[in-house]
């Protein structure tokens, strides 16, 4: 049977992707950011997943204002890195898992979460930057990836509570898939940041630290954070953190914190990264 072994969270700042692609990862500005992922690259060598269900948001790339799905699951065989206006990132094509993704879609919809099914989609930095951070620059990504896009562009995004419950539904779907697969769920985006208006540059270290702590042992508390609290305390784009709760919902109640990294800034954003493992 498929088995959820671990969860990973990470920010997905586009400038991180640019730094990798342009060979700037050893610059004094970027080196501390990438050093924070050295452990993770070694860890994932051993913990190698067969499939990553990667929760991210599209940034006005595959979805414009013409179509705004709150939750969308990518069921295609492959997904091309998107041209976001300056050419596609030079990273491998993302290989999906249509059979597993379709199973998850059907199961989760039957649990009352009305997903949008996507059979053709390009994937932007929201999905490819986390892959680069965890796997470096391989010729091909070492696992299959199921893209799971969440609307956090047009307000309101789904609530943290909804995301947390969805994570649990995804977990039940994974648990009843009858192939032996090691599955990781990744939640990306965040942490505190604001990209717009006179308040741009907003960072809330205390909020972020508390969030990281609670990801380990009190996710229920995080699931109660309201939209308004995110806007006020994490910045207008910090509300992306609801995506981390999908990942957390898909893990066991009790997890081991394997790794944690926090760094300010990457461009305009506080970078937060965690690895959590199920105990059994």
């Amino acid at each position, binding site marked *: 049977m498929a088995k959820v072994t671990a969860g990973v969270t990470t920010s997905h700042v586009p400038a991180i992707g640019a730094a990798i692609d342009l060979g700037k990862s050893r610059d004094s500005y970027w080196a501390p950011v990438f050093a924070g992922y050295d452990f993770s690259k070694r860890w994932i060598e051993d913990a190698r997943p067969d499939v990553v269900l990667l929760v991210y948001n599209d940034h*006005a790339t595959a979805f414009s204002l013409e179509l705004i799905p709150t939750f969308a699951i990518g069921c295609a065989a492959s997904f091309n890195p998107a041209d976001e206006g300056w050419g596609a990132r030079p990273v491998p094509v993302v290989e999906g898992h249509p059979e597993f993704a379709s199973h998850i879609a059907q199961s989760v919809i039957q649990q009352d979460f009305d997903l949008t099914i996507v059979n053709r989609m390009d994937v932007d930095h929201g999905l490819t930057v986390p892959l680069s951070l965890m796997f470096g620059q391989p010729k091909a990504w070492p696992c299959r990836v199921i893209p799971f896009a969440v609307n956090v562009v047009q307000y309101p995004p789904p609530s943290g509570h909804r995301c947390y419950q969805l994570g649990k539904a995804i977990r039940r779907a994974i648990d009843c898939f009858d192939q032996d697969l090691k599955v990781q769920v990744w939640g990306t985006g965040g942490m505190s940041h604001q990209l717009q*208006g006179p*308040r741009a*540059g907003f960072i809330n270290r205390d*909020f972020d630290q508390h969030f990281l702590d609670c990801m380990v042992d009190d996710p229920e508390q995080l699931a109660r954070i309201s939209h308004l609290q995110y806007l006020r305390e994490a910045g207008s784009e910090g509300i992306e953190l609801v995506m981390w709760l999908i990942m957390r919902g898909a893990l066991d109640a009790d997890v081991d914190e394997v790794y944690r990294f926090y760094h300010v800034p990457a461009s305009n954003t506080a970078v937060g990264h965690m690895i959590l493992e199920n105990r059994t």
Partner: protein
Amino acid sequence: MSLEKPYMDIPGTTVFDADQARIGYHLNMFCMSLMKSANRERFKANQRAYLDEWPMSEPQKLAILARDYNGMIALGGNIYFLAKLFATDGKSFQYAAALMTGMSQEEYAKMMASGGRSPEEPPAAPERGRG
């Protein structure tokens, strides 16, 4: 009954909600068009003519021509769409963010390097036209 908007008093922040998305639909879709290089070239060759192809209000077009990002946001622009515009200009997210705060890019980068804008620190109110 109208929707409650308890987020309207957050300083220096415009929430891209249903109303903003409606007002800014064409402005944002114009930005989206700039993902195609042929469109970028046409826009750069004659900005006003390109803008006139879109059913936008005159204030929206003027804000775009002036690269008044706070103005565009007030008129329904969303930062992820506006990113296509400043990318077309060869500018970074940090450049645009600095502009919206009324700081120089250097000052802004320095603020970020020293931990970012603190939650206690109210944002400055840049004059219209600066950001």
